């Protein structure tokens, strides 16, 4: 694993020992394959994503497999999570028609959230969503749902109108607005959806790594120990901050997916 190898190789490097700061970079996001099958490498993020899927399924299985009218503790926690996504995100955004999309969006929320949380779980310590392939896959599902629903509900012409033709705008503005809307809704939305989640997790992880590496690097029997402890405190603070960002990004991801679906289901105007 790249990160571990790098840290191990720099373990003896400290401030005032004549070596420069081993700044972490993109290498933090590259992993040596655990094994390879037919030229395809199986890496840590893949393993983590499988673990995340199993965790989500395992938790909800334990909570909801034998549901009771008077819930136990685990079922209650599951219900609170389920109800939060259902009510505060999906039904709030889409309305009564959103009932059908609750399972997909609930699955998406908890899958994304746990993949983000991996960032601060000991030994995992890597947000799976910071590998852009994972947000791209999920954004693709959202895009296919969004486009599919738009054209299914309004037909091809109506669907294009829904995507490109905002209502209540004077005619001459349309000349500029229609291409922008077209470009924005069909290409920019899925792209930003994926990149937003990716970039937040990427940056957050890099920040934590930078301050963690720095606190190790600065640690030396000198004034450096003070710098190092400051850096360590910042790393801890950032970890707590990341906990918030992880939740927020999962929330935003599903919130935007809901609002796209709501847009697709909107009555023709």
């Amino acid at each position, binding site marked *: 694993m*790249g990160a571990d190898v790098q840290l191990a190789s720099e373990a003896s490097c400290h401030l005032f020992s004549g070596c420069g700061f081993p700044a972490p970079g993109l*290498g933090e996001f590259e992993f040596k394959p655990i094994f390879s099958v037919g030229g395809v490498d199986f890496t840590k993020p893949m393993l983590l994503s499988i673990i*995340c899927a199993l965790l989500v*399924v395992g938790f909800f299985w334990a909570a909801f497999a034998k*549901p009771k009218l008077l819930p136990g503790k685990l079922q209650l926690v599951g219900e609170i999570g389920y109800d939060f996504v259902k009510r505060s995100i999906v039904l709030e955004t889409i309305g009564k028609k959103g009932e059908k999309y609750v399972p*997909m969006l609930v699955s998406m929320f908890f899958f994304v959230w746990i993949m983000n949380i991996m960032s601060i779980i000991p030994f995992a310590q890597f947000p799976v969503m910071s590998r*852009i*392939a994972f947000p791209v896959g999920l954004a693709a599902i959202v895009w296919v749902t969004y486009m599919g629903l738009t054209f299914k509900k309004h037909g091809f012409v109506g669907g294009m109108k829904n995507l490109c033709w905002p209502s209540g705008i004077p005619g001459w503005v349309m000349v500029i607005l229609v291409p922008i809307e077209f470009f924005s809704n069909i290409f920019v939305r899925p792209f930003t959806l994926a990149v937003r989640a990716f970039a937040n997790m990427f940056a957050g992880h890099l920040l934590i790594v930078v301050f963690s590496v720095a606190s190790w690097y600065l640690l030396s029997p000198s004034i450096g120990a003070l710098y190092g402890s400051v850096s360590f405190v910042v790393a801890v603070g950032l970890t707590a901050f990341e906990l918030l960002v992880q939740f927020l990004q999962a929330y935003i991801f599903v919130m935007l997916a809901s609002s796209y679906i709501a847009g697709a289901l909107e009555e023709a105007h």
Partner: protein
Amino acid sequence: MAPEVLLAAEEKMNPLLPAWPEVIIGLLCFFIVFGILGKKLLPSIEKVLGERRDAIEGGMKRAETAQAEAQALLEQYRAELAEARHEAARITEHAREQGAVLINEMREEGQRQREAIVAAGHAQIEADKKQATAVLRQDVGSLASQLASRIVGESLEDHARQSGVIDRFLDELESKATAAQGASK
């Protein structure tokens, strides 16, 4: 050596280019989650949540229904009671009218019977008076003739009776009395 490896990795990697195996694994993982949650777990919890909602709201709704039913029943009873009262009033009115008619009939009947009784009484009195008059006349005649025979000293009785003197006298007396009555009127 390590920095070179790192540099090589950095040159090779573009963080914005998705690696297809990861995309596929990610999608598979998502569909596993979605499949199990969407097909089994969420419907089952949704069912239980619905049942719970029913248990709470259903109780309230049932109470409301029962109350509405009771209210309807009360209305019905009130309406029936009002109808019964109305009916009773109608019957009473009818009875009163009938009673009045009956009383009138009875009164007329009584009047008629009284008149009949009075008439019968009058007739009886008339008959009694006639009889009494006849008896009286006979008695007065015999008394007078007895008196006269005492005075005269011999029995005039048969003679007087034969001659009809007494009767004639009495008739005269009567006609005088009637004349006097007619004059006084």
